[in-house]
């Protein structure tokens, strides 16, 4: 082992990342070379100082911030709850639409129809209007508005 190899392996020696054979070589080199031993001692002291500067325990209250973020961004706890909520919302829309269709059908069934023809440009358009007590010029769309 030479000085360059000793330097290259020094941190790994301190971190116990060397094979047994290399560790023995490193120790033999330090025993024979005072400067190498001094180099190891200064690295060891700096390593111990760095270890003692490790941050303490995480403060309390960290989870509250995380939970708040998970609440708005995270997945729901049970997907069935979400599905039930969605179905309830859709169900009320479907009910409203059914009511409207029933009303329209009733209107159409009760009313009398008049058929008129008008010429528009070169075409002849057929317009059907329902005759009721409600506004005379009611088309189906207008009846919806008045229902």
């Amino acid at each position, binding site marked *: 082992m030479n000085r360059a190899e000793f330097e290259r392996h020094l941190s790994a020696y301190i971190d116990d990342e060397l094979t047994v054979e290399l560790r023995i070589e490193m120790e033999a080199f330090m025993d024979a070379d005072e400067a190498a031993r001094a180099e190891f001692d200064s690295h060891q002291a700096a390593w111990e100082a760095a270890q003692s*500067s490790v*941050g303490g325990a995480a*403060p309390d209250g960290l989870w509250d911030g995380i939970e708040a973020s998970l609440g708005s961004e995270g997945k729901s706890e049970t997907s069935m709850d979400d599905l039930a909520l969605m179905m309830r919302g859709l169900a009320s829309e479907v009910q409203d639409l059914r009511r409207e269709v029933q009303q329209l059908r009733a209107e159409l069934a009760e009313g009398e129809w008049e058929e008129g023809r008008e010429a528009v440009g070169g075409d002849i358009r057929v317009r059907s209007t329902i005759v009721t007590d409600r506004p005379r010029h009611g088309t189906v769309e207008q009846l919806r508005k008045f229902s």
Partner: protein
Amino acid sequence: MEAQADIVLIAACQQGDHRAFRQVFEIYRDRVFSLCRSMSGSDEDAEDLTQDAFVAAFKGVGGFRGESSFGTWLYRIAANRCSAELRRRKPRFQEIGEAEGQNVLPLSTRGDQEQQLVRKELLQRVQAAVADLPESQRLIFVLGTQMGMRYREIGEIVGCSEDAVKVRIHRARKRVRDALKPYMES
């Protein structure tokens, strides 16, 4: 030996179970905070980074496939958050003692007071030396020297070989040692 989240807990997290994730948080909170604290240099930044890391972990836990340990996967997320934040701005160096109750011994005798001052100054110099390291060296130094991880795990977190970790950690350690040497010799 460091506690690890077991596969049942992880599976529950992957189903979106917040309570299971709270348990995961309790297992890893101190080490993730320690990593963020050492990288950022301030308690305030470390708190934000720790929260960001855990939120990111929860959002991405569905992608965890067990190719590394869960801890390694989590530390990688935290390390990436720290690195991204550091690239965005310079870390703020916070004096030891500004953080409440950090490394403060009860004052009883004059000798104790002097010891505490010496200790405080040494810790400040260590933090300054670590803060001066290039970002890539700082992360490896923190993971290896301050968190005591093995080179293999460090390599998995930062995405390099064990030999590369060995070289970088030695360079980082040499810089920190050189920064501390005049103080320690005096």
